[in-house]
């Protein structure tokens, strides 16, 4: 029998004390460091830059937000949201066959292959992944070489001539940016979709067939609706991550900026922290709305 154990005794007498001790350190950290910072961000967005001194004026004002509505800044917002939407839709389309196969058909060894096959790129260095695409899309890189060997160089030239989508080479075009985004965020879409597909009992698909539906109909009326929460969950990641990214468009992209780049630029050399903060608040608000809508659609069950 235990001889003297004053702390243990006290914890047994008051179970809530134990709970309190467990929860307080992480709560303190997250509360002060993280929530505190978010609050600081919000505060900064309501400050402004004194035009003459370049110093931050710590007084409440809406002037900084009004700057967001200037044409050049507003363009950045629209451009970013358009890209985020395109990436999300494409990711859903590309991820679906992979997720579907992994959920329904992969067994035993193949299940592990698919699991690791998605996990390893997911956890691989983000920067290395982006860098690899810079190599691939470069003018002298492998993609060009592929087109030339297949005698399809003219096709690539024609594509690059399209305004907005094209450019001097793929690595300085919106298409390039789009491809890299798609590549990097794809695992984030695959996982939730796979999770929600795995929740579909096979008997449901059999019942559908039993009631006379062709495979295409089963796909459209049974599988897709059930996979929808997973798709929405994945879209939360792809949308949010695209909106905030500043590295990918900087390395593979044109000189037209996205929100992330604007934030980075304004907090750095341009020395306009309040404006950077205001830009950063936009994705938060957008994601807040998106998340509320997604919660109503039941997407959080698939996380």
């Amino acid at each position, binding site marked *: 029998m*235990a001889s003297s154990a004053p*702390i*243990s005794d006290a914890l047994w007498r008051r179970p809530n004390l134990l*709970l309190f001790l467990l*929860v307080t*350190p*992480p709560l303190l*950290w*997250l*509360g002060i460091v*993280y*929530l505190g*910072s978010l609050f*600081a*961000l919000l*505060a*900064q967005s309501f400050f402004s830059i004194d035009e003459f001194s370049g110093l*931050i004026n710590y007084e409440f004002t809406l002037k900084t937000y009004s700057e967001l509505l200037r044409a050049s800044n507003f363009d950045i917002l629209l451009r970013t949201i358009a890209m985020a939407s395109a990436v999300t839709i494409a990711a859903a389309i590309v991820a679906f*066959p*992979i997720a*579907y*196969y*992994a959920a329904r*058909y992969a067994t035993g060894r193949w299940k592990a292959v*698919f699991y690791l096959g*998605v*996990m*390893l*790129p997911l*956890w*691989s*260095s*983000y*920067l*290395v*992944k982006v*860098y*690899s*695409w*810079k*190599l691939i899309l470069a003018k002298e*890189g*492998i993609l060009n*070489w592929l087109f030339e060997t297949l005698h399809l160089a003219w096709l690539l030239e024609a594509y690059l001539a399209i305004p907005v989508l094209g450019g001097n080479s793929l690595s300085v075009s919106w298409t390039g940016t789009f491809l890299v985004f798609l*590549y990097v965020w*794809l695992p984030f879409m695959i996982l939730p979709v796979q999770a929600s597909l795995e929740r579909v009992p096979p008997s449901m698909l059999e019942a559908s067939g039993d009631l006379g539906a062709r495979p295409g109909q089963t796909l459209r009326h049974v599988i897709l609706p059930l996979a929808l929460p997973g798709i929405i969950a994945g879209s939360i*990641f792809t949308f*949010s*991550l695209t909106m*905030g990214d*500043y*590295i990918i468009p900087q*390395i593979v992209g044109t000189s037209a900026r996205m929100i*992330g780049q604007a934030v980075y630029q304004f*907090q750095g050399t341009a020395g306009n*922290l309040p404006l*950077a903060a205001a830009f*950063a608040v936009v994705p*938060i608000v957008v994601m807040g709305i998106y998340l509320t809508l997604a919660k109503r659609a039941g997407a959080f069950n698939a*996380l």
Partner: protein
Amino acid sequence: MHSKASLGLRIAAIGGLLFLHLPILLIFVYAFTTEDKSYQWPPPGLTLKWFEVTWNRPDVWEALGLSLRVACVSTVIAMVLGTLCAAAVARSKFFGRETISLLVILPIALPGIITGISLRSAFNIADIPFSTWTIILGHATFCIVVVYNNAVARFRRTSSSLIEASMDLGATYWQTLRFVIMPNIATALLAGGMLAFALSFDEVIVTTFTAGQQQTLPIWMLEELVRPRQRPVTNVVAMVVVLVTFLPILAAYYLTRGTETVAGQGK
């Protein structure tokens, strides 16, 4: 219900998987190329000399050292805080439990740039200068959730009667922690720690906002991407980074395999 997938589906699935892996493998090839002014394909020749060049670059070593230091400290902090939080959430229902689960996930759910600029705003208002500790502050915060996920999943799988049995047989809280709880969650904690390490080692977005003048390895790489000095050196470093982070992830997978936990869903 088909027991075998159609050919089209199989091709799409495997093709998708290859799409995910080929770009990284490409970098490995580029690490050996003799061409150092451009990203020419196919590589004109293969050589090992860039490995030696990289070895002799002091800035690479410095950046590597900082990355390792930050990753180690952040991982330890995250392991402590993540486990404490997981223990509380998994064991009891209490007021605010849902909120805490959300709060833990937030640093990773919101884009890195938000976390980065928030921390920067806070440092500005509180007048805190940049240092290794400001980097660690950011890293530990988003690493908590990785450890938390693994720990919570394992706690939920550990029957609460084990703790009662231990106390019934005469063990105090400390003894129960040491002899029963720790052995049962050890592998999950380790897996979470490895993933947290990999995450911290690789992180660049939040770090850019919290590092000031210092360079972690990813920041070094970013610099090189924007203003390349010796491209193949970057390739070599990239290859090393992939290999270094590959190992903890594989280890984390094997540590939690055969348990129903999914090691670290979502970055």
